[in-house]
């Protein structure tokens, strides 16, 4: 086995790309959970829809960039409908109920995807502009994967600016701290919840759209992703967005590097890291104890 830096560096970058998908999914989960204490189990199914919608819009518009924009918007809109017509009915009931409902929903979405797009997955090519590789000086890396890293960083900055620099962002952060007080100030939290659910689902859709050209689109693609993203959220600390980013990148690295040294253990390592974090710091790296327990 080759242990040189030149051999490990591509692995680190591959891990970083996977980490970016984890971050996008985990930040959506964490945002929804932090504000609404809802675990959206259908997050993986929405990731899958993101990939399929990209294929659909690509076939329709013949323009990858447009498809990459439209697919997350569609998934986000779908998220708005889920909140408005399903999740909203469960407020005030056991916090397990939204988890159970979205679990049922994910079964329905996976089966529906099989009916519409078939059981066999579809492949999706990166756009011509990003098809080749880029020489970074110290290594050669596929251009599309660098693009995924760049898009995620831009989206994260956008989200950070939205949450810290706008009034709506301020209300969202206040709402996750003390919803009762925010309500008392005369703010309609229902609309904020709707918006946040839509944004979270849209981020899952974006992750799926970005993953499409690397991993293809198939009905069950979201299943392990949602479980691993949840592990990322637990490791980072429930409801902590910074935690989701740090833990997402960390988990991407863990998977990337284990894939290099012991491929069979790669899927397992994610859970081993989780178990260790739980033993040492039960509330996660950046978590606060007591959120929705």
């Amino acid at each position, binding site marked *: 086995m080759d242990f040189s830096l030149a051999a490990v560096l591509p692995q680190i970058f591959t891990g970083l790309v996977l980490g970016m998908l984890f971050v996008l999914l985990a930040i959506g989960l964490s945002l929804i959970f932090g504000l609404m204490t809802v675990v959206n189990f259908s997050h993986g199914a929405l990731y899958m829809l993101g990939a399929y919608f990209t294929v659909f819009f690509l076939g329709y518009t013949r323009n990858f960039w447009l498809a990459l924009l439209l697919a997350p918007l569609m998934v986000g809109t779908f998220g708005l409908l889920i909140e408005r017509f399903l999740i909203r009915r469960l407020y005030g009931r056991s916090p*397990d*109920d939204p988890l*159970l*409902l979205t*679990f049922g929903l994910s079964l*329905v979405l996976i*089966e529906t995807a099989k009916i519409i797009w078939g059981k066999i997955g579809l492949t999706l090519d990166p756009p011509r502009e990003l098809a080749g590789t880029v020489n970074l000086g110290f290594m050669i890396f596929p251009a599309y994967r660098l693009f995924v890293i760049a898009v995620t960083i831009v989206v994260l900055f956008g989200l950070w600016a939205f949450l810290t620099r706008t009034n709506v962002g301020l209300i969202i952060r206040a709402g996750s701290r003390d919803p009762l007080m925010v309500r008392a100030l005369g703010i309609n939290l229902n609309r904020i919840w709707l918006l946040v659910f839509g944004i979270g689902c849209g981020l899952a859709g974006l992750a799926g759209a970005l993953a499409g050209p690397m991993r293809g689109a198939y009905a069950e693609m979201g299943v392990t992703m949602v479980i691993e993203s949840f592990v990322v959220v637990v490791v980072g600390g429930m409801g902590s967005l910074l935690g989701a980013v740090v833990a997402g990148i960390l988990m991407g690295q863990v998977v990337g590097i284990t894939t290099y040294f012991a491929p069979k253990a790669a899927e*397992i390592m994610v*859970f081993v890291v989780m178990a260790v974090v739980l033993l040492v710091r039960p509330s996660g790296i950046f978590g606060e104890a007591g959120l929705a327990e």
Partner: protein
Amino acid sequence: MGRHPVAAFGMFFAVFPFLMPYKSLASQVLIFGLFALGFNLLYGYTGLLSFGHAAYYGLGAYGTGIALAKLKLGSLWLGIAAGPLLAVLGGIAIGFFCLRRRGIYFAMLTLAFAQLLYFVAFHLSDVTGGDDGLRGIPQLPLNLFGWKIDLEGSLAFYYFTFVLVWLAVAGLKRILDSPFGTVLQAIRENGDRAAACGYDVRRVKHLSFVFSAFFAGLAGGLDALRLAVVPVESLYWVTSGQVVIMTLLGGAGTFFGPFVGAGTYLVLGDRLAVFTERWPLVIGLIFMAFVLFLPKGIWGTLIDRLPGGTSAGAKP
């Protein structure tokens, strides 16, 4: 029926295979009913939603399967004992980790640990058969005080399963009627108050977790005998989801709910499969409707409507 649930269970399931389109389906209902019974002890009675109960079902199936196919123990009883034993060991270890957190964390952590076991079983193909499943489980005859009873006939296997599941049902009734069972329900209603009363809530929860793993493991072991193979999907998240759906369809926190739910799920799935390959879509929609509109499930709603029915406390 309400006053003697264990006797009622025995009477109903004694004639059950003759109500079913085929005998193997009847055995399947009993086995998944037992699995759901274990899940319900944890979710319905203790208030802990485990989303990874396939772990204990799968450990039970592999325990029995490995004991008979790989270790060649040659005794049906030892094989059956090995399943729940392995599940209990898994329950002790995983419960230790998962019970460090509560609520939704607990649910998702149990799922994560089940998924960990799935990947381990998938890659340890020397022991588990990996993707092909564990094959070569011998169909041993039942040795009962020198009598040898052949279990290969589906009706013989049904009644063998029936007796074991009946014993488990009686055992669960005993647990629920004991002071320990009352503490479980106290924890479900208000964990903090139970702790204030001086109960070691974490230990009681852990014990409930391990009991639940035992029932699920026994179900897994019986299913390994029924199929003579352990598919790696036994440990997959879909299996965990199935037991959640069954229990909620039937009615969480009711005594018969798990069996009503397992029967409904399996018979409905069996009939729907004739019409469409996509029957999980229909089950998923029905499940969503139950979460939204009938959270007490079929049996729970039924006893609420009956005279003298109550929605609080332990239900028959």
